[in-house]
């Protein structure tokens, strides 16, 4: 979106009452204050030879083979520029971890070379790693557009940094000379958040394009002139390499235009007689702003639920992007002052996560909002793979309350912010680069993206599918591209509680077993003189079976523990605790598995007195 920022008037307009919120109460120490030293020693990356003089090296820190934690870098003549710095939410493989950030050992060992961090747009998978990473790589200046910088600044308030961050605001279509080897040109792209941009980095070997996340504005496949305008920067340019968003590369045709989505939502707002609750990602800033416009046009008051949504709207308001009459956004407490059919609630939580406003509404435990058959709930969002079940359950609960549901499956109320196949083709025809590396997506998406380029005539050897940790070198004359054999370290870096570090497999494996099988602790007191077990052994268990109903199982386990202990103890003259523990684990595990087909973690505790 090409946004003309309004000149902020001298007298600042007061924040709408509905956007005021209490500051976040900090629980426990700040994130990132405790270091996890890595158990396993990783090799230094300094052994990796430098690129040739005037040759360009492309570094892939994260975002390839996954959706999330996008981070890339360019290196040339001992200078490095970083492109985006994202995070990824924890998955099945990293149970209990708060979030993941890319592994940046390569940069940590080359701090002095880092000249700047460029942020394409302000989504968490592109900015989320900043608080953890920035100080560790020499605290480079952040270059981005105005709104993105505001988002980063706002998020920074939740974290403590050793050194303060410096920002450099840039305009679209402007050019900055970053260092001897890098000159940056920025161009606007369409995404779901204002001020998204792509970057052209001029290097001695040629120009590299980093598109950021993008889709095209279009009307049934006819691309908007606005896009032609934005992509006209490529007209007389020879581009060496494109790095482009692959998220939807395996979907055919053009994506559903955002305009259509906003229209559909507008129609729903117009035609619905009762109260409306609209849930969307808080990152869908543009759509949220359009929805607010529609609501105001239909005389509805707006209530915003969900901290991230309020935060984002506040930022948009402060930047003058959100023009609302003073009383349009009201706090939830004063909802009762207006008739129900004059209310529109904007809420987060469409992914079925716990504790969100929508979750509480669906369970009937929200303090102010009780949904009933006069309510309409619009899910203006897709379902992230893995969240299907929570979302189904959420819809099920809402339906039980009698509300009308609109979802992307039943009407055009959501569209992805990423380009489909035909849009990507258009984009690549305009950029017309010599080489190509697809990024931002699972490997099969990258591979589908590379196929598009092959279809429009790029020789297959000019496209390289990168993986996290890959290093790709382009020769100084810009003639050849090749993947470097040795890569950078790729262990996940996790943020677990307040600690930051490489993941410890022991802990994660334990968590996995605890989740699927539970834990079973048996405590045995041995009398050294009589060589007998004193009292009956104690059993503690969590997540294994419901003990109240399994008294028999527990009693048998106790008996087995007693028998095993006494047998083992009597065998030798002195008591070997390790041997005793091992035989306890073996015998009890055997028994429990035979009885329940479960293999909980068994912890024997032996006291000798």
């Amino acid at each position, binding site marked *: 979106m090409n946004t003309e920022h309004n000149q902020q008037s001298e007298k600042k307009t007061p924040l709408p009452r509905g956007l005021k919120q209490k500051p976040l109460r900090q629980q426990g120490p700040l994130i990132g204050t405790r270091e996890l030293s890595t158990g396993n020693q990783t090799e230094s990356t300094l052994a990796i030879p430098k690129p040739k003089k005037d040759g360009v090296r492309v570094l892939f820190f994260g975002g390839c083979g996954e959706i999330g934690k996008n981070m890339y870098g360019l290196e040339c003549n001992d200078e490095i520029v970083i492109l985006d710095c994202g995070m990824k939410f924890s998955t099945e493989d990293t149970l209990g971890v708060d979030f993941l950030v890319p592994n940046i050992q390569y940069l940590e060992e080359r701090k002095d070379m880092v000249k700047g961090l460029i942020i394409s747009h302000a989504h968490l998978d592109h900015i989320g790693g900043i608080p953890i990473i920035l100080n560790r790589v020499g605290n480079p200046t952040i270059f981005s557009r105005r709104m993105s910088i505001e988002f980063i600044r706002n998020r920074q308030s939740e974290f403590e940094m050793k050194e303060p961050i410096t920002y450099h605001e840039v305009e679209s279509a402007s050019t900055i000379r970053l260092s001897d080897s890098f000159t940056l040109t920025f161009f606007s792209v369409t995404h779901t958040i204002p001020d998204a941009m792509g970057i052209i980095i001029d290097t001695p070997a040629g120009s590299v394009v980093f598109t950021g996340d993008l889709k095209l504005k279009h009307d049934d496949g006819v691309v908007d002139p606005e896009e032609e305008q934005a992509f006209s920067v490529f007209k007389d340019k020879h581009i060496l390499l494109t790095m482009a968003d692959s998220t939807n590369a395996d979907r055919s045709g053009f994506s559903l235009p955002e305009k259509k989505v906003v229209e559909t939502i507008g129609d729903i707002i117009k035609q619905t007689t009762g109260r409306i609750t609209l849930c969307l990602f808080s990152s869908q800033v543009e759509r949220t702003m359009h929805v607010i416009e529609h609501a105001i046009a239909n005389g509805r008051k707006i209530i915003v639920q969900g901290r991230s949504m309020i935060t984002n709207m506040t930022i948009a308001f402060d930047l003058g992007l959100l023009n609302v009459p003073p009383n349009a956004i009201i706090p939830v407490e004063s909802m009762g002052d207006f008739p129900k059919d004059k209310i529109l609630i904007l809420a987060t939580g469409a992914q079925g996560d716990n504790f969100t406003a929508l979750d509480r509404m669906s369970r009937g435990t929200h303090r102010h909002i009780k949904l009933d058959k006069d309510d309409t709930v619009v899910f203006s969002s897709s379902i992230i793979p893995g969240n299907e079940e929570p979302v189904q*359950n959420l819809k099920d609960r809402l339906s039980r309350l009698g509300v009308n549901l609109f979802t992307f499956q039943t009407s055009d109320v959501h569209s992805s912010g990423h380009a489909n196949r035909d849009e990507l083709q258009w984009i690549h025809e305009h950029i017309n680069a010599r080489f190509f590396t697809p990024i931002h997506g699972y490997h099969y998406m*990258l591979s589908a993206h590379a196929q598009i380029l092959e279809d429009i005539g790029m020789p297959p050897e000019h496209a390289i599918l990168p993986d996290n940790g890959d290093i790709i070198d382009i020769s100084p004359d810009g003639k050849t591209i090749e993947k470097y054999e040795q890569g950078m370290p790729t262990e996940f870096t996790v943020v677990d509680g307040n600690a930051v570090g490489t993941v*410890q497999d022991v*802990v994660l494996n334990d968590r996995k077993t605890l989740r699927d099988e539970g834990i079973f602790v048996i405590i045995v007191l041995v009398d050294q003189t009589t060589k007998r077990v004193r009292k009956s052994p104690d059993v503690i268990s969590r997540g294994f079976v419901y003990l109240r109903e399994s008294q028999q199982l527990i009693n048998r386990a106790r008996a087995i523990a007693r028998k095993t202990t006494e047998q083992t103890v009597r065998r030798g003259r002195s008591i070997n605790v390790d041997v005793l523990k091992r035989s306890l684990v073996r015998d009890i595990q055997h028994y429990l598995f035979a009885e329940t087909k479960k293999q909980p973690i068994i912890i024997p505790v032996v006291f000798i007195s």
Partner: protein
Amino acid sequence: MTPPHGNHRHARRQHTDRRRRPPHRGPQKMPFIPKPGHNEVRIIVLGGVSELGKNMYAIECNDTIVILDCGAMSGESTTPGVDLIIPNIEYLKSRKHALQALVLSDASLQHTGALASVITELGPLPIYARKLTGAVIENRLRQLRRAPALNLNDIEENKTVTLNDTVSLHFFGIGNATPTTLGVIVETVSGSIAYTGPLCPEQKDTAVLAKEDSRFAPLQNTKLTLCLADSANAERAGFSLTDKEIANDVINSIKQASGRVLAPLIHSQVKRNCLILEGVLGNGRDIYVEDSLLLDNLLTACDLGITDIPKKQIKSFQELDTSSDMSNVVLFFCGDEGEDYPSLNRVSFAMHRRIHAGNSDSVIFPSPIIQANARVVQDVKDRLSRLGASILSYTTSDIRGSSHPSKDELRWLHQKSNATFFIPVQGYHYMLTAHSHIVRDCNRSRDTTIIPNNGSLVDISPNGTSMKLQKRKAPSTSVSADGNTPSVVQEVVIQDRQTLSKEGVFIVIVFLDQRRMRLKKSPDIISRGFVYLRESKDLVSHARILVKKVTEREAKKSSRISIDMMKKAIQKELQSFLLGETNKRPIIIPVIFM
């Protein structure tokens, strides 16, 4: 309704403390539920209406019960550690003498998954199913070690089975298009009840074929009191895709692939699998089947004449000569509901014994990907793509053709049926609601529809003039089928598993010298899944000191030591200490010896 799980950590109870009994929160005991009155008909919804899967319904009239389906579902994401969830059959167990028949409307796990444990618990009921369904079930049970014997009865089109004076069963809707599905009209003294099963009338260009009218004629000709119909796709506009359309798409896609093709199939979708195989063979490809159950079902289909593929053309992958040229081979894997594509997953990890994916391979997913598997599929695709395989997509792959009726088919059905009452079944509540809207649009008044919950009991008066939802409910808590015996899924256990998996556990063991009010030795600490103890020596020694301090302080407080108070104090102080140090809240278990 459960409260949000916010504070369950604090509300934790001690399971084993023999001195303190937790408040009782055991399984739902079978409450007393009076029998329906003479000539009244009761519909018991045992499962399938707050989820997709575990379909199980029953009809009771004058001491005769007919069970309709007994499905299962996987519950991995919300109930960790539980492989399979089956319906709660306490109600049926309390009325064992009245059970007369079990009708299976389809062969998929959603309709038959709980069969083994249901038959084990209820005894050898006569089972009515189509021949292929029966064969598919027998193939599956053969793989279990302790499978019960089945009393299977094959059903043919328009057959009527008279159970006794009160109830007879009339079967309808059998066609060759879907050789596993079956509809049934349960005719009772007080009216007839139709259960459609996953009906899918054959259609072409958005119009149902004329021959379907005759197949579904019983629906129109019988005076129906009640109709129970499938809602799984009631939200989706238009017609569902037929097996044939999907198979054609898949075949075309495979045709364009140059090398070997790997494809996971759902073993119970026999017809679709046969169509795909026929097409693939027609293009001159060789077929190998990796999964033994899938192979059994395909061979059964050959035996029953569902397909005319010669049996010898369907080969087990054991016969695959891996050293020869494989560009002409299509390999079929198991892609079953409730399983994580076990063997294809192994291929993607490059851990399969004989099959190694590479540059020349293509992978296609011809079956609908069920919700619980979406993530797994994404990871499998990623890994296969990394091995060099290309992932084929086809035009209908997004639509995920499933064999459930969409809006237009349901409209067709409800225009045909003249049932007085309607109960939507099979699906989440919002799907049932969408289905009830379709029925309402067919000019039915709203009060003739009841949207049920799991455990709902609906009674129809003897003359069939009124339908009423009972206040009482049959027990409906989910039952897990893993382990040796089916047992009720305990929410406490599941919540513990969830906390354990995110925060871990922290156990402190304290020896208190009662006379001197001092610890005999430094407290012992055991922790799993919380932090890496070897790297957190400071944390552990600080925790030890804290526990010692708190215990001795509490012990000196009064002359009589309260173990409970002491434990609570340790838990509280330790929790705030650990939260402060690490920002995590493990489950803390203090053990005190005196």
